[in-house]
């Protein structure tokens, strides 16, 4: 028996071998086909009773009292997972971020039931190179559930999105899922700061890749895309819950680090008529949440490195995550899930690696902190 048994070690090595060597030739069509093929299986599987080894999920799988008590007819609840901000370099340069991205994929693949889809939150690459994006696509191809791609500034500013769009299609799109209208935005457009400075594409990319330089422009969704958004929403009733994915937070947190979207208010105005709006964003690499009017915001964790909280502008509802331990490359990082509830609200589970997961209930946000307060960190940011 011992000889036939394939240990986790062996299987893991073999899997990674396949990912990193065997799938070199994967193109966009193959990538998307993989997703289509698994969708049916995943949907069938999600009908099975919840059976997870994560107790936190068992707790959250309890019937949604808010919805049933309110007697809402409701839509079927569903769960999706996310992986975000992997910041992959070429693998000859940096293995650390590869290891982390692979861990995230393992994590979401171990979920049972499987999530309806996995959102990738942007910044797949670090410097926007084709090799980096290729590596990212190969790693994400291992995700069992369908993957929904979002673009980040690190994917974009080397060739202004040519490679990313060739691989993954248009950066902004929408779809309907189990009664929810889902919108994916490209929120990291910048005004041209490079032409006048005669920057090469690499210099432009390096500038955008840093937080604390004063040269680059602020992120924006931009006129064209806001028009597209208005048109897209024109046919969606105001009672339909909205899920909006953006790479940068769709509000103004800290301008100096571009934790910021310059036309955030205009986008919020477009979303205002809807009863339930949840915005999920990447870019900030930390536990971060906010409520502005009808809109609940959740930031996603990164798999590459955690960022400290900015010196000012932190939304008052955000309870900081524990300060990360630099010995452990995974600390302060992770992935997560969003439970889209029958009542149109969405809860967020921060699956912090090497920490206990933290659930942030929508009730906490919509009550402006009056109920369901998430746990406090033992060590907040300095």
């Amino acid at each position: 028996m011992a000889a036939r048994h394939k240990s986790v070690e062996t299987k893991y090595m073999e899997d990674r071998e396949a990912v990193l060597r065997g799938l070199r030739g994967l193109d966009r069509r193959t990538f998307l086909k993989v997703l289509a093929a698994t969708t049916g299986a995943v949907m069938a599987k999600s009908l099975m009773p919840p059976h997870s080894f994560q107790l936190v999920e068992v707790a959250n799988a309890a019937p949604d009292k808010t919805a049933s008590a309110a007697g809402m007819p409701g839509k079927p609840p569903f769960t999706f997972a996310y992986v975000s901000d992997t910041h992959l370099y070429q693998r000859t340069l940096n293995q650390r971020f590869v290891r982390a991205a692979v861990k995230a994929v393992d994590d979401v693949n171990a979920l049972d039931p499987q999530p309806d889809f996995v959102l990738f939150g942007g910044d797949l690459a670090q410097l926007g190179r084709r090799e980096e994006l290729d590596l990212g696509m190969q790693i994400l191809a291992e995700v069992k559930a369908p993957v929904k791609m979002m673009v980040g500034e690190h994917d974009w500013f080397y060739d202004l999105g040519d490679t990313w769009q060739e691989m993954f299609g248009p950066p902004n799109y929408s779809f309907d899922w189990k009664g929810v209208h889902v919108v994916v935005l490209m929120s990291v457009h910048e005004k041209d700061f490079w032409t006048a400075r005669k920057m090469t594409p690499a210099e432009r990319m390096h500038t955008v890749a840093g937080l604390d330089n004063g040269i680059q422009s602020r992120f924006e969704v931009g006129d064209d895309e806001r028009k597209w958004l208005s048109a897209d929403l024109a046919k969606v009733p105001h009672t339909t819950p909205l899920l909006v994915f953006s790479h940068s937070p769709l509000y103004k947190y800290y301008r100096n680090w571009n934790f910021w979207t310059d036309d955030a208010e205009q986008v919020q105005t477009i979303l205002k008529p809807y009863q339930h709006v949840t915005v999920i964003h990447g870019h900030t690499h930390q536990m971060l949440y906010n409520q502005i009017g009808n809109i609940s915001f959740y930031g996603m964790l990164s798999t590459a490195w955690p960022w400290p909280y900015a010196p000012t502008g932190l939304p008052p509802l955000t309870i900081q995550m524990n300060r990360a331990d630099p010995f452990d490359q995974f600390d302060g990082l992770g992935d997560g899930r969003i439970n889209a509830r029958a009542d149109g609200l969405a809860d967020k589970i921060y699956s912090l690696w090497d920490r206990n997961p933290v659930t942030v209930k929508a009730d906490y946000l919509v009550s402006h902190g009056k109920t369901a307060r998430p746990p406090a960190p033992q060590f907040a940011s300095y």
Partner: protein
Amino acid sequence: MKPARTLLLSLLAATAVVASVTLVAAQGPGPLADPKSENQAGFPTDLYSWVIPPDNPQTPAKIALGKALFFDDRLSADGKISCDHCHAPAKGFTDQLPTSMGIRAQFGQRNAPTILNAVFNVTQFWDGRAPTLEAQVQGPVTNPVEMGMKSTDDAVAKIKAIPEYQKQFQDVFGHDVTFADIGRAIASYERTQLAFDSPFDKFIGGDQSAISDSAKRGWSIFNGKGRCMSCHGWNPTQPLFTDQKFHNIGVSAHNANFVPLARKALDTLGKSGGGEQEIDKLAIGTDMSGLGRFLVTKQPHDIGAFRTMSLRNLLVTQPYFHDGSQVTLWDTIDHYNKGGVQNPYLDGGIVPLGLSEAEEDDLVAFLASLTSPEYAQPAKEEYDLQFKRSRTDRPQRDTAAANGDKGHGPGLAGPFGDIGPAQTSENPALLGGD
């Protein structure tokens, strides 16, 4: 080590243990079992004053009672297994077996941890499932593959029936035998097993000649390139070489498929998550043992995580790791050097180290310098055996992985973390004691 050979070795050693216990019964447990003095180089006076629980102060009578119970095989169901069966003073308060043999020659799943300095443990057992030494006692006594008592009541009844004990319990606690007091007495005895005074402690105290140059280099690697210090923490206040925490370093990934195993454990333990005794049974008696800390916390990040053990007196507490799977200190260092065993729950601090053979030898020399004087002779013999073996037999060595260039395509490094540049930090050993 091949399974068949392990078993054979275990059986042989077990026979020896049984023989020695019989001998002990006749002659008493010997000087190594005596309570130890606090007057030892490197003894953490402050820490010791913090860890004696106010509700169970140390008294000579209680310690003597605890010692009698510790060496009394009547605490087991068949009257053959005493605590020292697996925690023998001559073997550094372990059994020197990969995993321990309990009642009716049944083998458990875990390597017996030493009693030496257990007084300083923040939690007990490899997975920390007991919060105190007092609470820990119940585990082995009632575990069906260890001492096999049906219940704590049975144990109390059996002890109560022995007249000397009846009197001693009255004298020490002022009332009849209870299981909590059995725990208190044994814990008090265990708290007297203090093991410092090693050559390393003398070196830190300022005696530059107390350890070899190789051990000094090892201490430097321990602090630097080897990244050992971050988990096996040492400082004068807490000179234990452990962070008292739980890390997945991949040991049980050799033979455990974590995700299905974790589901199985949750199913078995039920919605309540199981009580201490249920967890104890899974940890000692089933394949779910490999889940480690997860059985206690049910948190995914604790899957396959085990408590960081102290590094003192390693040359009398072999073999190593929670399952006793590694035979020599070179094997354990080889394990870390290649970045542990890959698995989805591997601790993020475990990365390839790129240690050379000479650096590994230096690290072992340093570890050998952590031996307390009463074990100097057996430790030297064990060192010689392990050294000899390490020249020919290195099952865990994977130099390519250790150097970060395990191939995944031509010229590509492995996907499991970068290896840092060699550190050229100053040797703290040469900068004088702290």
